Structures are given as structure tokens and as C-alpha cells.
């Protein structure tokens, strides 16, 4: 029932969005972004992942800004690779745990965690350390290994990606919190918020073979947008990404970026990695499509050092 309802509303919203876009109202669309945070972005440095999140979310008015009582929340970390936490190929488990705890504190009814892993999902959930902490914090780990879990959605306005199959849990939850980890990426040069959505869809191969950068930007048009992006920059894989080979690939940056604007978040993240955001094609493409703002100077950013 709920799902059908959602389809109806999203279809309507899609038409509305399409109409709005055809009239050129990109900025107005984005103005309706979820949450009424005081800042567009919090950048924090110098603490442990959980302590940094505590402070940063407080600056945004607490998790209550994004999660209302009784809501179902999807926390979507990057759990792509069957690799131990120290190698920083997956989001820091401590951070994931803390976010789940904040969600429950804000009154969330259920918190779900999932990723469409690249490696064997059972091993990846386990060895990333995320399954354990998520369950301990009371969240449910949702498998994403079978096409059966994915529902067809359409992306009005998508240039290359006009439809996709997304995981049902994204459609069944009320709030989507995107928790990527910042990493080097062999082909797109960087992965953070926008690229983390490749773990929400079933058929990534389509993206790879149909202009990857454009597909990444196109997907961000889909109306189930993240209420909040938390970019984990605690341990950062600066080369051999996104999987990494050994510890030499990792630099400890002890940072974190919280933002409601994922294009801005990725722009800041790229700079952390020392890459020119203009060279990461999907960022300028997404900016031009009105998905977010890559001009950080125009944003209200709070920088904190612990």
C-alpha cells in the first residue's frame, strides 16, 4: 500500500519537477530542500568520528532537524568492499553507529542500513565492521544482493539515466541519510556523496557504459534525496581507490563534512583530497543541472576545529 502510494506521489512530483525544470526554475526546486538547518555545511576537524558528529549535528540543531518522531530512517553508508575498517574503503563504523544512535534519540521508529556491495555482501557487511555496530545500535541491516529487492523508478529530467531500479528500503523509509566515505577513485577521481548512490541502484553496469559522470548527476534528480549528507573524512584513501591495496593508501585526515547540499559537500570533499572539483565531471554537471551549488563562497559554512 505504502509503496503504491509513494509511486503515485513521486510520479506527481516527477511531473511537477519536470514542469518546473522546463520553466528553468532549478534554484527554486532546490530551495525546497529538506531540513531547516542553520548552516549549509558544517566542516569539522580534529576529533574522533563519533565526537565530531556529536558536535556537528548539534550545530545543525540536532538530529531532530532531520528526523521526526516515528519516522523510518535509511542510513546509507558506503559498504562496498570486503575490507577491514582500517583500510578506509568503507564508511567508518563508529560514525555509522553514532548516526543511528542520534536517529533513535530523535525518535526514529526504525533505522535501516544497507548498501549494494561490490564484493560478496555477507562478508562485506561483516568485515566492514558495520553490521556489528549497526545491530548493536538497534538498526536493521538490509540485504541488497538480489534484484528482487529493487523497484523500478523513473527519473524525469535525466539526460542519460531516465530510469533505474532502486532498493525498496529507500522507498519504504521517510528519511534518507547519506553517509559516504571520501575516497580516491580510479575513474571518476573521487567518490563521496553523489557517487555513493551507485550503491542504491541494481544495475551499475548501465551507468558505467552510458557516460558514468552524467548518470551520477542524473540520479541525483530522483526525488528521494538525502535529508543530510555526512561525508566521513576521518581516514581517507588518497590513492588506489575505491578499493585500496594496503594501509599506505590511507591518510588520516580526522575530518567530517555535514551538509544538506551534496554537490557542495562533494566540492569540499574534492578539495580535501587535493583534486580540482572542476576536474571531477559529475560535480560541474550536477551544479549546472541545479542539483546543488559548487560555489562554496556563496554558502553558509561553519568550520570547526576540535
Amino acid at each position, binding site marked *: 500500500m505504502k509503496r503504491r502510494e509513494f509511486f503515485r506521489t513521486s510520479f506527481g512530483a516527477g511531473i511537477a519537477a519536470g514542469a518546473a525544470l522546463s520553466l528553468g526554475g532549478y534554484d527554486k526546486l532546490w530551495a525546497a530542500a529538506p531540513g531547516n538547518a542553520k548552516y549549509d555545511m558544517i*566542516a569539522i*576537524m580534529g576529533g574522533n568520528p563519533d565526537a565530531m558528529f556529536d558536535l556537528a549535528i548539534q550545530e545543525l540543531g540536532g538530529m531532530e532537524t532531520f528526523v521526526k518522531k516515528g519516522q523510518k530512517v535509511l542510513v546509507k553508508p558506503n559498504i562496498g568492499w*570486503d575490507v577491514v575498517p582500517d583500510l578506509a574503503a568503507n564508511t567508518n563504523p563508529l560514525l555509522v553507529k553514532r548516526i543511528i544512535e542520534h536517529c533513535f534519540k530523535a525518535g526514529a521508529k*526504525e533505522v*535501516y542500513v544497507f548498501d549494494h556491495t*561490490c*564484493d*560478496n555482501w*555477507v*562478508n562485506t557487511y561483516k*568485515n566492514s565492521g558495520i553490521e556489528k555496530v549497526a545491530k548493536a545500535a538497534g538498526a*536493521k*541491516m*538490509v*540485504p541488497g*544482493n*538480489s*534484484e*528482487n*529487492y529493487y523497484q523500478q523508478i523513473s527519473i524525469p529530467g535525466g539526460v542519460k539515466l531516465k530510469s533505474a531500479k532502486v532498493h*525498496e528500503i529507500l522507498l*519504504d523509509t521517510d528519511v534518507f541519510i547519506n553517509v559516504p566515505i571520501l575516497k580516491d*577513485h*580510479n*575513474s*571518476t577521481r573521487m567518490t563521496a556523496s553523489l557517487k555513493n548512490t551507485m550503491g542504491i541502484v541494481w544495475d*551499475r*553496469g*548501465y551507468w*558505467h*557504459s*552510458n*557516460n*558514468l*559522470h*552524467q548518470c551520477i548527476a542524473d540520479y541525483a534528480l530522483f526525488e528521494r534525496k538525502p535529508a543530510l549528507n555526512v561525508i566521513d573524512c576521518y581516514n581517507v584513501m*588518497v590513492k*588506489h581507490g*575505491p*578499493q585500496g*591495496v*594496503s594501509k*599506505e*593508501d590511507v*591518510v*588520516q*585526515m*580526522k*575530518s567530517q563534512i555535514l551538509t544538506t547540499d551534496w554537490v557542495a559537500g562533494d*566540492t*569540499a570533499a574534492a*578539495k*580535501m*583530497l*587535493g583534486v580540482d572539483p572542476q*576536474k571531477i*565531471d559529475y560535480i560541474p554537471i550536477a551544479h549546472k543541472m541545479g542539483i546543488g551549488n559548487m560555489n*562554496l563562497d556563496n554558502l553558509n*559554512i561553519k*568550520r570547526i576545529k576540535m
Partner: protein
Amino acid sequence: MTSSFLRKFRIAFSAIIFICFLAVFWDFRSLIPEKFINYLLFLQFVPSAIKYIDIKTMAAGGFIVIILLTLLSGRTYCSFLCPLGIGQDINSRIGGKIRKKFRRYGFRRPHTIVRYSILALTLGIAVFSGVYVLILLDPYSIFGRFMTYLGKPVILVINNFLANILGRFDIYTLSHVEIKGFKLIAYIVPVVFAVLVGILSFIKGRLYCNMICPVGTLLGLISKISLYRVKFNESKCTKCGRCSLRCKSSCIDFLNYDIDVSRCVDCFNCIDTCPEKALSYSLLGTKSKAPEETKADEGKRRFIKGSLLMLLGISSYARAQEKTVPVPRKESTVKEPRTSPVCPPGAGSIEFFTRNCTACSLCITACPNKVLQPATGQYGLAGFMQPVMDYHKSFCTYNCTVCTEICPTGALKPLMLEAKKLTQIGKVNFIKDNCIVKTEKTACGACSEACPTKAVYMIPYEGNLVIPETNQEICIGCGHCEFACPVTPYKAIFVDGNPVHQAAKKPENKESDITTPVEFPF
């Protein structure tokens, strides 16, 4: 030994063994530790014998234990330990319930020529040529194939059905598992044998074991001098013939007080059924007793349920195979120039592997990534059904050694994880003319992303683009690149098998110049 106890003990013991085998072959969530699987498979005759010939230590001495056991007690292996034998007992029991009115058993002459010819042929070919006949006839491997190709899909269908129901309530304790299926031709062997063994056991009890099975025939020969055996007490026997009618092996010639030990599988049904207690299981030169019957309607129900689900399973197999995602895009033009199939890690070489594998399919069912598939021609006709790495289906998990740890024949030798990570089973090859970066001028890099050793890495191409480059020295041939490559019908990157496995170089890695930041760079 008291009669009622013997039969009950046999049933209880074999039931436990059978359930263990089912669990091992159907363990799609990899819950059973490899150690347990090794214990269970230690006593399987053919795998153990093959392994022993190779490593010659008592770690593979299971078949010696079986020979000693047979010398002591006759063909107890066939009733207590052989999963195919136990399965046939269940099936013939169902057959008995359904065809109650028929006198199906009763004494018959042995198929002497047939059974000894098959034994001689199997042994001869195995010694002088290859294991291909043994692959077909090893009872454990036949059972393994039944479970892998015919049984497991049923279990997955049930799992998926339950997972779907639970999923509606947002309960994800059971997860949906995609049933990928194998090439249709791979089903021929298990289906033919399922029909053969199924019909023979349904109607004629242990006829397959006493006519075709080379292990049964061999153990039958040995049991001719066994110490313990079922015997008549001629003074008590009234020649009612009930024992003969209940003998699954049709080996009791009650008129002459003679039991053919070479065919007797020690099921003890005769002892149990004799009203005069004229039969006993005892040392060469002693006497006997007897109780009443047990019933099981459950079996019939299970069979009907099972066969219905089997139908479901097969139909969903068909569906699974249709499901390939059409991707609107230019097709690749250069066919991959493959020279050799890729055989699993731990095999050492294709030659060794194909000589030692009985295609029991345990590794195929246990592989968490489903990269192992039955060969349909990759190893030639003789290697039909032996597992081969199929990188179009999946890839070999970097952190996994499961197949090497559970192989009962030693065709795959145990590898420590660190050694496996440096075992090169094949080498990567890049076909630039098929690559999206060149043909479409857009970014991709799926192969390099997937590569665990960075044997596939990206180098600058036109403009902002980067294109793959390979380093075969550190490639281990896991096939993740080939699997990830989105190009069809020919891949732009593929792994060509190493006929003899080699050692890969350890990937070198240096610290980065990037240091811990003290200020935000924005």
C-alpha cells in the same frame, strides 16, 4: 546382537548422516564450518582414495577405515555412510508404501558379469586413463550432484518465498538469494542418474548398488571374508520366506539358508522381520532373535511436497536464465582470444585438477560467490561437470578459500589466505578496442575499481579521461575485472587461465605525499 536394536540403530544413524549431508550441500548461507565438512567427508570412499593416492598420509585414510570396517562388518558403509545409499533406502521405502501389493523383492541371482565388468572398467580406466568414468559412477559424487543441481534450487525457492513474506514486514533475517542456474546441458548427467537410480531404487531396492555401483561391488568383494554377517539359525527357520521378501538387496536364498554377503548391505530388515528370530548378525559361527515393524507416512508426504517444489524450482531456474539486462549501447567487436579455461585456486594445474576431481560439485554449491560452474566443454569431454571458473557469472572473492578447504578428493589443496592471494590462476588481458573509454569516449573504470591488487589501473587518456592498463605480474586472475566490465557481447578485459598456476608478485605500495591537513582547504 539383539535384532530390533540393530535395525533401529541403522535407521537413526543413517538419518543423522543423511541430514548432515543435506545440510552441507544446501548450506547457502555458509553457516557450516569447513572443519565439520571435512569430518563428514573423511569417510567417503572414492574421494578419500583419490586424495590418498596423491598425498599418501592418513589424513586421507578414510577409505582404509572403510576397508577395515568392511572386513569386520560387511557392507555397513552402504547403509550407514553412503549418502546415495541412504537416499535410495528412503526412496525404496516410499516405493514400498505406494506399491504395497506387489512382491518387489525376493531372492534373485546376482548380476555377476555386469557388476564385475563395471568395476573392472572403472578401475582400469581410472588407473590407466582418467577419472571420467569414476566421475559418473562415484556414489558420493552422484549424490552431490543431485543435491547441487536438483535439490538446492528447491531450498532456495523455499528460502526466497519465506524471505519475501518476511520482507513485507521489513524483517530481513532471511535474505532473498538469486537463483542463477547453470547451463542446461550441465543438468543432463544429474537428471539421467536421478531417473536411473530413482526408478531402480523405487522398484528394486538396492539393485543399483548391486549391479552398477563400483564401490558397492568392490566392498562386496571384500565383505566375502568379513567377520560379522547376517546368518540363519537353521533349527529355528520355518522357511516362511518373509526375510527374503523384505531384502532390498534380494540376496536371501532362504530355501538354502544362504545369504549372499557380497550383496548384503547390512540393513538388518530381515533380522527385524523374522518371527522366529532365526536370523542374527554375528561372528562367523553363532545364532539369532526378532521384533515388529515401524511405520512412516511422513515419507510419502515429504516426497509429494518435494516433487511439487522441484517443479517450482526448475521453472524458476528457467526464469533466472532469461534475466539478462539489455543495455542500449554499441556492441563490442573483438572476440576475447582465450587460450585456456581457469581452474579454481588450490588445483595447481589443470592437468592435476582434471585427474583428481570427481565432480561431486561440493565446491560449486559451497562457493559463496557462485563463480564455480560445471564445465561443459572447457576441459574437454572427459572433464564434463568438473568445476571451472566462470567470470561471466561471478568472480573469485579475494578473501575466500572455501573451495580449497572442503575438496574431499584433494583435487583442490588447502590454501592459506595469504598464499591464495598470491596464487595466479590466470592473467588479465585488456582489449582496448572493446573498451567504453575508447569506443564511447566516456569514463568507466569498472574493471580497475574491482581489481583487488591494482593489476588493472588507469592511465591518462584523452582530455579528462583515464583508460585501463594492466600489470600481469601482480594479477591473480580473480576475474573481478572481467565480471565488472559492462561491455557485451565480448568483454574489454578478460582473464586467460594459467594451465599451470603460478605465483603472483605481491603488489608494492608506497606512502602517499598527501599529509594530514591542519586547515580546511575551502
